[in-house]
């Protein structure tokens, strides 16, 4: 066989392909070099803005940590991958764990992705600090007693808080309710929690319509028409994405929100898009765990808000805070474990142990991980107002509740817990 030039080129071509294979042989020296944190952030689709927001919080935390000398002297390095479909995200998680050999992974918003990542984290023996991505139903099944997964607050915390506020402000002022919620576990969990709490408070509200548009829908004309027909006194919605302003705008244009009470548990996720033109005053609006104009904000929160506004020309929302907290909690746990080990770099098991119960200063005040790996934070909601310097609504007064109050405690079923309330 004569080795022609062409053939030679072809063979070198094979070599090039082989070289391009992602070879995961980068040796990681456990005690030196940077601390590697893998990030899973959504980039496309309806989750993209949220993923972006979480990433900003992570970036802010990382810059501060590195400016202050890193974690026990080691620089913190981020390896960012994309959160997409559950299958693809598990593969990216695997890359972070096996190929990049990260010390922990932070990220993930979608419930479906979260359910896939839980077992993957246990299997890969890699710490995973979720930004969101929790649900009643799936979690118990796929993450019974997780070792490596650390979860966010429960899905329905904001429904619980909004329901308590609803009862406080409007008990006796409405007889019929309608729900319009995104068609997936988050929407269903929140609506069910709302109904259970109304019952607990003795509010005999009749459900006149239950609508489940697809997450991220862009047209609600038919839904609005159905709601106008149903004539509810109160509309409950846990929209959190671009669908929120679209729904509000179309509802306003059809005159739906003029006399109807509105509860938007999570609309604060896209607060800047809730323009005064179509978002009424006097609605209950939730910002999850971070409100950018909290009068009692810490210096840290103010600094972050300023940084965010300058850098991105936007006011920050809650996902940044989730992202921020996972990073600082990880750092705090390492330092806590190192102290216990006499200053030596801790083992992974020691870090996990230290994460349980660790407390750190988040953008919304102190937060911690419970011993059962669930986040404990403060939530912010309130009644909308037009009296501000923006073209969108804000809340006044700002009410805050801790998850100690609005999240089910460890080991108790959600509805058992609600039914056990004293009201």
């Amino acid at each position, binding site marked *: 066989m004569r080795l*022609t030039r*062409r*053939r030679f080129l*072809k063979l070198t071509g*094979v070599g090039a392909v*082989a070289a*391009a*294979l*992602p*070879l*995961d*042989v980068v040796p990681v020296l456990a005690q030196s070099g940077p601390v590697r944190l893998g990030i899973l952030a959504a*980039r*496309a689709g309806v989750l993209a803005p949220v993923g972006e927001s979480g990433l900003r919080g992570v970036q802010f935390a990382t810059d501060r940590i590195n400016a202050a000398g890193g974690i026990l002297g080691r620089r913190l390095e981020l390896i*960012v*991958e*994309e959160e997409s*479909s*559950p*299958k693809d995200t*598990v*593969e*990216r998680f*695997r*890359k972070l764990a*096996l*190929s990049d050999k990260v010390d922990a992974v932070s990220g993930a918003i*979608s*419930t*479906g992705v979260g*359910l*896939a990542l839980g*077992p*993957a984290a246990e*299997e*890969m*023996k890699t710490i995973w600090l979720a930004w969101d991505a929790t*649900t009643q*139903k*799936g979690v118990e*099944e*796929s993450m019974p007693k997780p070792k490596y997964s650390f979860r966010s607050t429960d899905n329905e915390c904001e429904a619980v808080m909004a329901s308590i506020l609803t009862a406080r402000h409007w008990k006796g002022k409405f007889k019929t309710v309608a729900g319009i919620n995104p*068609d*997936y*576990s988050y929407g*269903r969990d929140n609506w069910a929690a709302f109904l259970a709490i109304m019952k607990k408070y003795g509010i005999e509200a009749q459900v006149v319509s239950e609508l489940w548009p*697809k*997450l991220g829908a862009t047209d609600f004309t038919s839904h609005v028409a159905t709601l106008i027909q149903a004539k509810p006194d109160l509309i409950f919605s846990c929209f959190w994405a671009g669908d929120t302003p679209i729904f509000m705008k179309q509802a306003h244009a059809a005159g739906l929100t003029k006399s109807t009470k509105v509860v938007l548990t999570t609309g604060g996720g896209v607060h800047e898009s809730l323009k005064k033109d179509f978002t009424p005053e006097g609605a209950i609006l939730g910002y999850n765990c971070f409100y950018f104009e909290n009068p009692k904000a810490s210096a840290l929160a103010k600094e972050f808000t300023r940084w965010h506004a300058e850098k991105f020309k936007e006011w920050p929302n809650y996902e940044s805070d989730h992202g921020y907290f996972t990073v600082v909690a990880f750092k705090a746990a390492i330092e806590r474990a190192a102290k216990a080990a006499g200053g030596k770099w801790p083992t992974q098991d020691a870090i996990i142990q230290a994460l349980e119960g660790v407390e750190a200063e988040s953008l919304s005040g102190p937060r911690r991980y419970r011993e059962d790996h669930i986040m404990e934070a403060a939530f912010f909601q309130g009644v909308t107002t037009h009296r501000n310097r923006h073209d969108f609504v804000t809340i006044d007064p700002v009410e805050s509740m801790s998850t100690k109050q609005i999240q089910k405690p460890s080991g108790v079923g959600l509805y058992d817990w609600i039914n056990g309330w004293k009201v």
Partner: protein
Amino acid sequence: MIVRALGLIAGAALVLLPLAGVPYTTTLLLPAFGYAVALLGLNLLFGSTGLLSFGHALFIALGGYTAAALTGRFGVRSLELVLLAAALVAALVAVPIGLLCVRYVKIYFGMLTLAFGMLFYSFLYKFYALTGGDEGMRVLRPMLLGRPLEHLDTVAYLTGPFYYYALGVLVVAALVMRRLVGSPFGLSLRSIRENAAKAESLGIGVRRCRLAAFVVAAVFGAIGGVLLVVPTGLADPLLAYWTHSGNLVFMLLLGGFDHFLGPVLGALVFILLQDSVMSLTSYWRFVFGAILAVIVIFFPRGLMGLLDARRAAAS
């Protein structure tokens, strides 16, 4: 000649890869194996029969959900049984769908299959109680050849026994498909692709052959789907979404639909390319869209076509 030599080198590399101590690359190839099996089937439909399905992800999802239901709900952990069941379910579903679809060709066939894929996606997404909605269904780790392999952790399981199992399934699938393509049935399909009226006038039952190809493609799709969800541990509705079907066709075109091993090459290259481009830029969709556009416009015969052309030029 060159193609064969390259194939041998690649085959040897695949067999030896788990021993190279690169666990991530090894797990990365698992979905490529699953896709390769599904694409072998899809290519019987497109490459041989000339019908381009834009809903083939339906059968991948069907295989995935069958695996989830069997391992998760009914406690059937034997992968051989799961594969068999997935093949059966796919065949059962493919017959009625195929009966409707194979009456049409070209873009009408494409659109009808797309509609069926989206119908199934909507079903998975909306029928919460049955399918878990957006959360999907968990797939538990199956036994291989009756061996539970519980002593292995997941990485060892995936990069060891399951890797070879999946590779084995792919090899068997490829051998079966080669037999099919080289059989009288395969020739009948090609004659239908070339000129259905002429084939009909020569006594070929055009619709029956198309239906058979559709069902075979579905079975391969479901088997690929099972291999695909075991490493992920989850079957979710996005498996059936139209963009997933689009990706399948992308892989097929990338590899080259008129060569028997084109689908396998397409799956491998797609997965490796996706992995590296995703790590390089968050705008990987743009890169992939551009690659696809270039292939569609300038190189419709894919990588295998390029290899062929160079071989032709060299000789």
